[in-house]
């Protein structure tokens, strides 16, 4: 625990030093401090997970009235581990990135605090401490999203959405906690857990759903997601990586903490609602991910998709727990945590690679990129590895984690009964559709962005990024591969961390050479073996071909059906790639399509030009939030009419209120 405080100290030194140091050393020192903080945090969390002990820290000094209550257990240590691993990579990345992106001191100053608050959230052990660190996290992240506001008009708009949603979420969480605290007369989490049986079912349900909505909006679950695809792309890439890779996890942490420890949810239908929201998020996120052609926006939507998968898993685990099948509940929740680890790493990698692409081409629009694999091969390889991981291709991390999720869902279907089983079955279908759509989306991203011919001068003149950025993305790409090849070691880690939730049951995993082989599972995977087999097969075929065929390859023009005008404009674009799916799901996506054909004056048989526009917006935003926003604006206008500055009107309002009060009292 104390090591964590030292790490906070290191972070703060870095951040304050960035205020005083000269431009030359500022970044280097701040990044160094962040990396050091991350290293210390990951060391501490690893040691906590391996020992399985819980340490606490209480102080009445720092926060007025309530004091500070901290507790570091294996579960929170696991979240800290993910956050700090990502923070190390991002810290290294920033060395190269900030130099190009902005000269301002603000991000370097705020960034360590953002990181610190994300470590504080999972170790908070009382309502007050939790809300305080939650708010610090919200405010620092809002400031970080605003970093590029001078250059970018959208960022202010995005920040408004983000600030609004995050505070509504915080309010919802706060009310939920209030209900819990008032019902149990405690504000310390460990005491709430002890006396949660004194709550009535209505109190429990209300608290659970308020907390769930709050945390789900932080995690970006549909329909509380609208801020996420706006805020994540607007932030500078390192910040987006932290937000999508680490901050979103804390929403998941909140859901797990609420549903599995604070309020032991015992009624199946709560979890069914959770699964339903998870399924909708997974499918909706994946669909929007397919249809968007801005790389960072697409990545933000795929975060929603992955969060959906995790929420489905949490729901299934909760159902298993209520059905007293704790062994598989434990397996399922460790699957969720494993997916979270994999997601954080590959999403961090993808966002950082997107940042590198923006750095070297100045554009993130897929319709302007192309041919990058030849221009910037190293960055492109990293992006490819991230894309393969997220598409769940073996032997990368996404495959192993989704395998565990799938097995967990399969076991849930076997062991549950009645409506619960049906719910998990639909969760599984959503999972399947989302994984298929994700694969399509990332074939689009890599195929359109990295292959083919450059579609604009931006992509034509791309140059490789500085070595620090490359090093950081390579680190993450390597982690994707390692997690994918030896998933057993990592699953063991997640099982140890989630043991806390189901202390009675113990799984006895048999993870030889990093394969996953559980006695109750009756099946297993060994990605390392698969990779070895695959490599042998690949080498054999290549050798055979080399031995048998000794002809050189002739390089010619692409075959464009004899067309003499084929150039980069005749390639498929990201929009056209997604068009079939957009049409299949038109009822959900509701794209705005417009085709205007203008003729030459002399004859209507000769076309002058054809304009086709295709705008796919977030349909949930359009059909849920915009009407609400409009209503709020109308109210606001009404209120502002009331406030026209006339003293008489104010006085008369006061008079009316007084009258009403008297009437009510009588």
């Amino acid at each position: 625990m104390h090591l964590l405080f030292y790490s906070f100290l290191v972070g703060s030194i870095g951040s304050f030093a960035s205020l005083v140091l000269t431009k030359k050393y500022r970044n280097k020192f701040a990044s160094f401090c962040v990396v050091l903080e991350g290293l210390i945090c990951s060391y501490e969390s690893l040691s906590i997970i391996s020992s399985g002990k819980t340490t606490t820290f209480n102080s009445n000094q720092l926060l007025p009235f309530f004091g500070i209550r901290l507790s570091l257990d294996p579960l929170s240590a696991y979240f800290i581990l993910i956050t700090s691993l990502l923070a190390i990579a991002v810290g290294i990345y920033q060395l190269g990135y900030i130099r190009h992106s902005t000269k301002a001191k603000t991000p370097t100053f705020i960034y360590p605090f953002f990181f610190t608050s994300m470590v504080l959230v999972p170790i908070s052990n009382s309502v007050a401490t939790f809300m305080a660190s939650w708010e610090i996290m919200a405010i620092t992240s809002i400031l970080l999203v605003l970093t590029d506001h001078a250059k970018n008009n959208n960022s202010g708009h995005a920040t408004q959405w983000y600030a609004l949603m995050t505070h509504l979420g915080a309010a919802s969480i706060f009310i939920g906690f209030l209900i819990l605290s008032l019902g149990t007369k405690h504000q310390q989490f460990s005491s709430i857990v002890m006396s949660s049986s004194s709550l009535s079912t209505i109190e429990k349900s209300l608290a659970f759903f308020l907390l769930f909505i709050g945390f789900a909006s932080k995690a970006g679950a549909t329909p509380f997601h609208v801020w996420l695809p706006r805020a994540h792309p607007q932030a500078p890439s390192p910040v987006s990586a932290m937000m999508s890779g680490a901050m979103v996890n804390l929403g998941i942490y909140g859901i797990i903490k609420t549903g599995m420890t604070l309020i032991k949810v015992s009624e199946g239908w709560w979890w069914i609602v959770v699964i339903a929201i998870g399924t909708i998020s997974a499918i909706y996120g994946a669909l929007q991910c397919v249809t968007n052609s801005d790389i960072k926006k697409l990545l933000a939507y795929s975060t929603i998709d992955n969060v959906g998968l995790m929420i489905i898993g949490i729901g299934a685990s909760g159902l298993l727990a209520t059905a007293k099948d704790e062994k598989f509940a434990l397996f399922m929740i460790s699957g969720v945590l494993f997916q979270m680890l994999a997601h954080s790493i590959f999403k961090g990698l993808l966002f950082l690679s997107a940042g590198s692409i923006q750095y070297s081409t100045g554009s993130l629009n897929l319709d302007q990129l192309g041919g990058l694999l030849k221009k910037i091969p190293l960055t492109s390889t990293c992006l490819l590895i991230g894309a393969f991981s997220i598409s769940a291709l073996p032997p990368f991390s996404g495959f192993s984690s989704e395998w565990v999720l799938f097995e967990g869902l399969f076991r849930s279907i076997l062991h549950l009964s009645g409506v619960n089983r049906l719910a998990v079955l639909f969760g599984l279908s959503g999972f399947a559709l989302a994984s298929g759509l994700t694969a399509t989306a990332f074939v689009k991203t890599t195929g359109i962005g990295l292959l083919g011919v450059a579609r604009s001068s931006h992509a034509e003149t791309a140059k490789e990024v500085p070595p620090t950025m490359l090093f950081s993305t390579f680190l993450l790409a390597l982690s994707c591969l390692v997690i994918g090849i030896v998933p057993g070691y990592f699953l063991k880690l997640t099982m140890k961390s989630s043991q806390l939730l189901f202390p009675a049951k113990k799984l006895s995993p048999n993870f030889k050479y990093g394969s996953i082989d559980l006695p109750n599972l009756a099946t297993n995977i060994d990605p390392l073996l698969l990779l070895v087999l695959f490599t042998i097969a690949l080498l054999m075929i290549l050798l055979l071909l080399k031995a048998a065929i000794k002809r050189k390859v002739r390089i010619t023009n692409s075959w464009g059906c004899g067309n003499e005008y084929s150039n980069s404009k005749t390639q498929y674009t990201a929009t056209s790639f997604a068009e079939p799916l957009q049409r299949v799901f038109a009822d959900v996506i509701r794209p705005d399509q417009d085709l205007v054909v203008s003729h030459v004056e002399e004859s209507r048989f000769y076309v002058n030009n054809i304009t086709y526009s295709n705008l796919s917006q977030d349909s949930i935003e359009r059909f849920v939030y915009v009407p609400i926003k409009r209503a709020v604006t109308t109210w606001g206008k009404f209120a502002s009419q009331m406030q026209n500055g006339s003293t008489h009107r104010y006085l008369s309002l006061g008079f009316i209120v007084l009258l009403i009060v008297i009437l009510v009292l009588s």
Partner: protein
Amino acid sequence: MTTNYFSMTYLFSGTVLVCAIIALWRKDIKAIIYSVAFHGVALGIVGFSEGLSRHDLALVQAGIETFILKGIVFPILIFRIFNRSGGQRDVEPLINTTASMLYTSLFIGIPFFSIGRLPYIASSPQSKLVPIGFATLLVGFYILITRRRIISQIVGLIIFENGISLIAFLLISGLPLLVELGESLDVLLVVIVLRVLAITIQSRIGNVDLAEMKELHD
């Protein structure tokens, strides 16, 4: 021996439901009529095998009767309506097929998990198949709601009614012969009336589309 009869019942009850789904799935009217025919045949076999396994002659009779009436006579009648009415070979559902299939997958599971809870259903192995009957009934109802043309409406009605017969076969060892006969005749009557109606409307306004019949209201 009983297990063999049971697995036969199980298989053909499943066929009844699958044929209903295929009738919802396909757009080609001929294919739909064929699937309804298979649907009736499978229903007849269910009644037949149930009757044999319970040594219930009435049920065997009902099975054979269903086989002939719903597997052969009704489809032929519908084919004749189809041939008379001419026109389109494809149905035009009000809701597109993909969405329909997804909704079906949602509501089809419900009977399987809710019917089992009903207290008055005996715990014989056959009664576990009752949800299949309910699911068939729901699919039939869904076809009735979402189809425009009269032939598809008849198909929906038949499927709906077959769902009820399936439940009856499985649950209360078949309806008494007279009731069953009366019910079937009822449907037969409906079919004939609709047929006459369809042909009349066809000759008057040249189309058999329910949506366009709204105009007749005025």
